[in-house]
């Protein structure tokens, strides 16, 4: 009756190799585009080449004659049934939001919008036919420039993205610490500093980025079962199921959504897309399975973009560097529509501009603006990278202004470790952290003093290659999110997560989670948690997710929430299994429950050598031959966890950049980061998350930008022009951790998915600036291309060279009759 079992060693903290990898490294994968079903038809989209135009005529006859075309559908054909894509986060009650039909009906509002849909027997034939749809457009003035769009009115004749709305302004959202009772009056602080302190006014540009996950989005819908099944390359199968039902009126119980293997998301698959709704609609119409897979250019053009803000910051301080107030005024480009949480993304930054600092007064103002460009929404970090960039830039600018060491200035203002928990001027309670320790660790790893010495030597010798050191002491709020807080912000859903633990008769365990992985390694990390909790072998645990018929309940994966919210739900479900098993164990051991203890996967009776393994209880429960009266024959348990707070990872990131002052070439020399993400479940996965996050943030600083020409055409519409970094562009990183466990979940964990991206961008730009500030350079817009860096140096030095005109995109050569300029030189106001 008593099985001998080795005491299991702790799984949490082990650098377990990932369970997921065996399939992925052998090509045994299930990407949505791999799925083929009998009788399946394929879609191709006909997309608008114009940013803003009336559709005056659509002739589909040639397309209909094309081989193996089944149907051609226009917006007018389905105007009454296609519904409007949802916005789940109206940030103000009076938010202005245009209807968002999946297929444009009579007007297109960005270049790339779907105008007609071809249904054909093969994807190639669908694409062939898409070329044959003849559409007449009447171009309209397009609202492209964010600042101009914000000013446009019917009276001043500025271009309106949606003329029927009479404005491009969608919503104005404000937080004021004096009004909220969390701090003082910022205008008074600024006025005072103007007389006896220092005031810095800066305007930074957050350029538009593209998430650019590696797997293009794909959707398959099979309407032939009792439930309509949708497979989609999505981060949010549960939210998608809910919204498909809400928009189409199909019963939620008749819809099953599966996110099979999903090739990255980074926020870019945190969306319910026109393509998903169209595939769903066509499948229902035809009663046949339907597939749509986008091309990369469609993905870059019509998948949502991220960032795109102008940030006006006013920072007031005393002469000794003590900051007295921060005022933030943002303009945020929503693009053509208010996407799923598009309007809310900048608001997620509202609580983060004050970052790790004890500012006594703070005000955040954000105006969201509609334009005739691809809509924007979450991209890794979503609001927090923008905030971190703004504050870490201006803190370094203030240090330069005052002529003090940027660390000294930060330390003067940051929250000391003994001051946690700390309620910030934005009203959040930071539970734990130690900025001093992370900074000391990062500086040591980096070789800060040595690099500063080298920097001085290069400066003194007038080396043509100058060295700059950039600092980012960031924090973020993640683990989205306490449902009450989301409710108070008018978000349309809660922030809980669900888990189930199923005990199988053989002692194996199935864990169901509503968090949907797409590369993060949930199966491995959650197995480690359950292995420790239940005392079963890591290998005996199967983590199931991403299918609403299996893991039926969830809020999915984004906002660095899976572990801190979803992992905690798993813990709670596992604990319920133990509670249930204990009752049965006591009965079988003929002992009082009070005398039964559970440790290392075994129930034992205090003071005896009697015991039963969890697997034995599972089998006994399955057989159900001998259970206590009234006890159900099941150990399976569910839990839904709603966090009481966000959590607040932080870290100190240091970057050394070499700048060739003759060519503007920038080269990363060293990057060291010490992150504090609380307790770590799997250090290997954590490092991987940081590496990838770092490179996405570095890419914003140095390479990536979604560029539109004057006509509103995306000129960075392929990987030739949208510069994703390669292995040859990047370096290896030095990483370490300090550990201040979170106090708001039992595992003590903090999110790590977005940390690298949030932290790294300002570290890099600060480093580039640190190298060239000596020449009088104050700002270089991202991405810091060699041209921009060179121009900044030469302008600051008072170089008399002729103005560099905006570079013509090479494929828009004037001789071709097509004109277009990029804004890489001017810095990107489009």
């Amino acid at each position, binding site marked *: 009756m008593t099985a001998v079992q080795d005491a299991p060693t702790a799984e949490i903290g082990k650098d377990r190799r990932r369970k997921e990898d065996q399939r992925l*490294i052998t090509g045994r994968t299930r*990407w949505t*585009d791999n799925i083929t079903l009998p009788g399946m038809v394929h879609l191709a989209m006909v997309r608008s080449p114009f940013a803003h135009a009336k559709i005056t005529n659509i002739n589909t006859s040639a397309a209909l004659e094309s081989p193996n075309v089944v149907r051609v559908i226009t917006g007018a054909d389905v105007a009454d049934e296609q519904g409007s894509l949802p916005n789940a986060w109206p940030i103000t009650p009076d938010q202005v939001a245009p209807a968002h039909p999946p297929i444009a009906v009579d007007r297109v509002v960005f270049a790339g919008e779907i105008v007609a849909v071809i249904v054909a027997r093969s994807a190639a034939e669908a694409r062939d036919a898409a070329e044959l749809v003849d559409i007449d457009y009447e171009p309209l003035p397009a609202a492209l420039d964010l600042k101009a769009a914000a000013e446009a009115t019917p009276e001043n004749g500025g271009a309106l993205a949606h003329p029927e709305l009479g404005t491009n302004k969608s919503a104005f959202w404000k937080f004021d610490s004096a009004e909220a009772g969390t701090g003082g009056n910022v205008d008074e602080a600024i006025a005072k500093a103007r007389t006896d302190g220092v005031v810095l006014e800066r305007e930074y540009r957050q350029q538009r980025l593209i998430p650019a996950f590696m*797997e293009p989005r794909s959707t398959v819908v099979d309407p032939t079962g009792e439930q309509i099944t949708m497979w989609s390359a999505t981060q949010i199968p549960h939210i998608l199921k809910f919204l498909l039902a809400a928009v189409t009126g199909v019963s939620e119980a008749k819809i099953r959504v599966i996110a099979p293997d999903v090739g*990255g998301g980074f926020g870019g698959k945190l969306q319910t897309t026109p393509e998903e709704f169209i595939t769903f609609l066509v499948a229902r119409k035809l009663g046949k399975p339907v597939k749509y897979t986008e091309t990369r250019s469609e993905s870059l053009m019509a998948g949502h973009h991220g960032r795109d803000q102008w940030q006006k910051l006013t920072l007031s301080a005393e002469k000794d560097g003590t900051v007295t107030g921060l005022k933030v005024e943002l303009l945020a480009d929503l693009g053509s529509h208010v996407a799923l949480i598009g309007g809310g993304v900048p608001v997620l930054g509202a609580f983060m501009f004050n970052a790790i600092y004890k500012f006594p007064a703070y005000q955040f103002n954000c105006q969201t603006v509609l334009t005739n460009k691809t809509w924007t929404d979450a991209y890794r970090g979503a609001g927090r990278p923008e905030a971190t960039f703004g504050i870490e830039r201006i803190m370094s600018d203030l240090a330069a202004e005052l002529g003090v060491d940027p660390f000294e200035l930060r330390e003067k203002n940051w929250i000391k470790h003994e001051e946690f928990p700390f309620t910030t001027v934005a009203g959040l309670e930071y539970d734990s952290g130690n900025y001093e320790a992370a900074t000391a660790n990062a500086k040591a790893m980096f070789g800060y003093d040595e690099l500063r010495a080298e920097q001085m030597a290069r400066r003194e010798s007038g080396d043509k290659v100058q060295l700059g050191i950039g600092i980012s002491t960031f924090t973020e709020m993640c683990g989205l999110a306490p449902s009450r807080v989301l409710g108070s912000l008018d978000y349309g859903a809660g922030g809980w997560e669900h888990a189930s633990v199923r005990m199988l008769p053989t002692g194996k365990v199935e864990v169901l989670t509503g968090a949907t992985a797409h*590369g993060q390694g949930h199966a491995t990390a959650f197995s480690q948690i359950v292995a420790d909790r239940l005392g079963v072998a890591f290998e005996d645990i199967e983590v199931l997710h991403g299918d609403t018929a299996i893991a039926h309940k969830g809020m999915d994966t984004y906002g660095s929430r899976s572990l801190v919210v979803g992992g905690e739900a798993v813990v709670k479900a596992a604990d319920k299994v133990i509670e249930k098993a204990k009752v049965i164990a006591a009965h079988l051991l003929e002992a009082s429950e009070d005398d039964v203890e559970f440790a290392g996967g075994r129930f034992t009776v205090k003071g005896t050598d009697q015991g039963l393994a969890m697997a034995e209880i599972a089998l006994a429960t399955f057989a159900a031959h001998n259970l206590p009266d009234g006890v159900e024959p099941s150990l399976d348990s569910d839990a839904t966890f709603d966090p009481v707070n966000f959590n607040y990872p932080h870290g100190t990131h240091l970057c050394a950049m070499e700048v060739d002052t003759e060519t503007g070439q920038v080269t990363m020399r060293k990057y060291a980061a010490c992150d504090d993400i609380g307790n770590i479940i799997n250090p290997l996965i954590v490092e991987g998350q940081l590496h990838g996050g770092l490179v996405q943030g570095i890419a914003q600083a140095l390479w990536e930008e979604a560029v539109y020409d004057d006509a509103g055409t995306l000129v960075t519409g392929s990987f030739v022009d949208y510069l994703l970094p*390669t*292995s*040859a562009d*990047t370096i290896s990183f030095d990483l370490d951790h300090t550990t201040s466990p979170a106090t708001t979940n039992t595992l003590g964990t903090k999110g790590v998915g977005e940390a690298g991206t949030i932290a790294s961008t300002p570290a890099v730009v600060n480093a580039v600036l640190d190298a060239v500030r000596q020449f009088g350079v104050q700002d270089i817009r991202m991405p810091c291309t060699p041209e921009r860096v060179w121009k900044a140096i030469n302008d600051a030095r008072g170089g008399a060279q002729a103005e560099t005109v905006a570079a013509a995109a090479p494929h828009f050569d004037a001789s071709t009759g097509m004109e277009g300029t990029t804004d890489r030189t001017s810095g990107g106001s489009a």
Partner: protein
Amino acid sequence: MTRINLTVDGDKVADDVEPRMLLVQYLREKLGKTGTVIGCDTSNCGACTVHLDGTSVKSCNVLAVQADGAEVTTIEGLAQDGELHQVQESFRECHGLQCGFCTPGMIMQSIDLLKNNPKPSEQEIRVGLEGNLCRCTGYHNIVKSVQHAAAQGGAQ
């Protein structure tokens, strides 16, 4: 339609294909070799990398008809008798993948790199993988994976 005969992952196959069909489409759509994936339309991403007569190619840049008579190895044909290729093993060991979408191409290119340069420096690895994009890993652990494979004699 054109008749082609070739060997894919050790199996002889024959099909009638449209002349415009790309090798990657042939692998995925005709043979069901969906381990090889398509990530872009401009041959930048390298996700579709396979070996054609022992040399890495981006299979979106080869017409199926050009593979007539050739021997093609995909990610699905690497492991022999259930035993992983060293480079596959090293990617797992060093956490050289996250979402796994670029991984087939990345592994196939890494094998080719090591075949030509069994003891590459970090910089040689970085340049050798420049034609394969990854959005998850930041390349740090991919480089480590190739170094690990090299140390284990992964050129074989």
